[in-house]
């Protein structure tokens, strides 16, 4: 049980690191917009290519080429 004297301080150090990281992320603005980020994971990165007949289609196809 004496290991507690070592393990608990280690746990506290980890906790301090976690708090430090979290504060860094908050100050960095990563949590400024919680609504959007929660939703973003559901959104597809690439929009569905439109039907070729449509007007804007050509532009969109181009932009997808490397």
């Amino acid at each position, binding site marked *: 049980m004496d290991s507690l004297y070592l393990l*608990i301080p280690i746990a506290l150090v980890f906790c301090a690191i976690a708090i430090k990281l979290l504060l860094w992320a908050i100050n960095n603005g990563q949590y*400024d917009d919680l609504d*959007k980020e929660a939703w973003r994971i559901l959104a597809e990165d690439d929009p569905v290519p439109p039907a070729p007949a*449509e007007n804007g289609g050509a532009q969109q196809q181009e932009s997808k080429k490397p």
Partner: protein
Amino acid sequence: MAGAWTGQCTPPILAMTPSTESPPADAAQLCYHCGEQVPAGVTLAIDIGGQPRPMCCPGCRAVAGLISANGLDNFYQQRTAFNERPQQQDSTTLEQYLIYDDPELAAGFTVVDDTGMRSASLLLGGITCAACTWLIEQSMSRLPGVDRALVNLQQSRLDIHFDPVKLPLSEIFARVEQLGYRPRPFQTSTARLQMAQEYRTELRRLAVAGLGMMQVGMFAIALHAGDIQGIDVRYQGLLRWVSLLVASFIVVYSARPFFSTAWRHLKVGALVMDLPVALAIGLAWLASAWATISGTGQVYFDSVVMFTFFLLLGRFLEHRVRQRHALTWFDAESTLPGVVATRRDGQWVTAPRTQLHGGETVLVKAGETVPVDAQIVDGSSAVQEDTFNGEHLPREVRAGDTIYAGTVNVEGALQAKVLGSYRESRLAALQRSVEVAQTEKPRLAKLADRIASWFVAGILLVTMLTAVVWNQLAPEQAFWVTLSVLVISCPCALALATPAALTSAASALRASGVIVRGENALDSLSRTTHLLFDKTGTLTEGSLTIADVRPLGDMSAEDLLAMGGALQHYSSHPVARAFAGITGTGRFEDVDYRVGAGLEARQDGGTYRMGSEQFCRQLAADLPKAPDDPLYWIALCREGSPLAWIGLNDRTRIEAADVIASAQRAGLQVELLSGDSSAQGPLLARSLGISTVNHGLTPQQKMAHVRQLQAEGAVVAMVGDGLNDAPVLSLADASFAVTGATDLARTQADFVIVGGDLHAVTDTWRKARQCRRIIGQNFAWALGYNICAIPLAAMGYIPPWAAAIGMSLSSLLVVANSLRLNRKSSPSQGHIGRG
């Protein structure tokens, strides 16, 4: 004054023919883009996701078409709220952004970096849900020259990083406008910066409290287990000391606002909810610290941190909802054009509006917004002054008349002499009165704070009594018993009672299309005695629609409307908007616009006229008198032969009568407060069953009326939409803005009805009443629990673990009870769902 080229302006509302009174068969058809009803006879549709989708207006069709053409159809599946109905766009709406290409003007909200790339921040109006951010980001990042585009939903802000050589700034504005959002420069203000700072500070406190709570909770489990199984004093001491360390940090870092607020109010002699909270946290921490140091008694570190965390969480969520909608701060001046044509040295030059001086002559073309208050020196036209009086029919003006900044010149070009700067204008006065009204708004004391004051006094009294009595009975136990009284009276549940219920009600309302902005609005609304409605745009739809066609020749109504549509295509008069959804047939030539009369044009060698009775009779002498129905009639004729009378009106919203009747049944005093001076107000009121009508009021008179009602003890809720309603909205105890409301009106309203369905007014009122009941129940429970538990604790019967469990359970019960507000059980919910 009403109408420049009307045949006859008679009060239209009552005489709607039965066929137009009842909703048309396809009334359920909603615009796929904005969710508003597709007006009868409009057959606009567009293919989205492989199916034709109905559209209510060309504006929506243009936006939806652009979205679909870019392959962003997915937006419609992902969004959680309808879009706003966009303004119909023409070349002038896009030209107005050209001024932002001026480096000096752009410097205010853009930054250029070393590589020549430019970063700009735009404030976007009309973002309704997270899917909008995706749509804007996707469309923007595809523009050539755009490096990165990020939308911050919380602040409705677009941050865009682009190459100014490849892409002018005006193009970005234009592009955003095309998507149906309203862009304007994002000006960093101190209030805005402060709000962002506060948000981060709150989040930091919450995060630290959360992580600390886990640590302390972990040690607490070990300690509780130790209490049951037995634990070596050495280890118990270690765990307590570590808990003390972490809890102290949390109390100092996270719980600080409770202490500072309580102290700030105490200094001025006010007892607020934060005081018992601060007392509970402070004393429980102090007692635990003492127990740790002296090695006796009980520790409550877990309760301390848990309580701190949950309270911070509740407040954080509440603030977030409020900030989200507080940020779209709006300035009336930003609606005015940035550049103006002015006469200098005998030539027309374009000058920035802010550089105009009194006495200079400006040119205001048809369709333009009047930039300054000015006196007409040449030309005649009509100006639409809905900004000031809410009316959609313009006022005729000629040389010598004064035109006001913010109104729209709808007919002919005007030359006018500048009367003064923006600060001296009537529009600026209107905005100032909004600010004044805000400070005048009666503050109803918060229920929680009222309860807090006597609750705190009560607790302190009981604690003192306990201390005195135990001091007589058993002095050695007095300290711990007194402490357990304080801990058990910890007002967790009491402190959570209000924010939990308000947050829950706000989220339920949001799901049904009502955005809650005001902090105390739900509380005020639940006590409302008077419900005041604006007329145009609130009880009516706010734009003219075609109500009746009376053919005079052998042409069918459809052909006549198509012809009218083709003709009106050339006009920017508000009447023309009624024809906007109609696809015109035939090409007209030599279209001539007669101010105050109507349109004249040629087709296949024949001359056609559309407009006032007198104007058309000059061409077709045997034109019969306009029908008796009190609609807004315009005539259509060909040389020598009258073709039709077309009747227009501002349609009453279908649900208006129903909403007013149900409000009256519920015991609310319903009044009509209209800026319109014509007889339409009283007629509309009578048809809807409203007995108290005040019409022809200026914004100041409206405010005076509300002030008077409030002085008589009434709690006033106001429903409005226009800029002219903004001051009265901010003065009323609770206020609603309906969709399509100008930004200024929106930012003043406590509730914004997104779907444009008036049922939301009574539904929100009902929800507010329900919310009040739930808060009452929460308080009853929290107080009842305390009243039962405190005597037991005072007698020394409650062990600390039981006190801790009791406290948590009572808080959970309050939260669970508040969540009932989120259930969709109200019978009228179906109405909102439509929005």
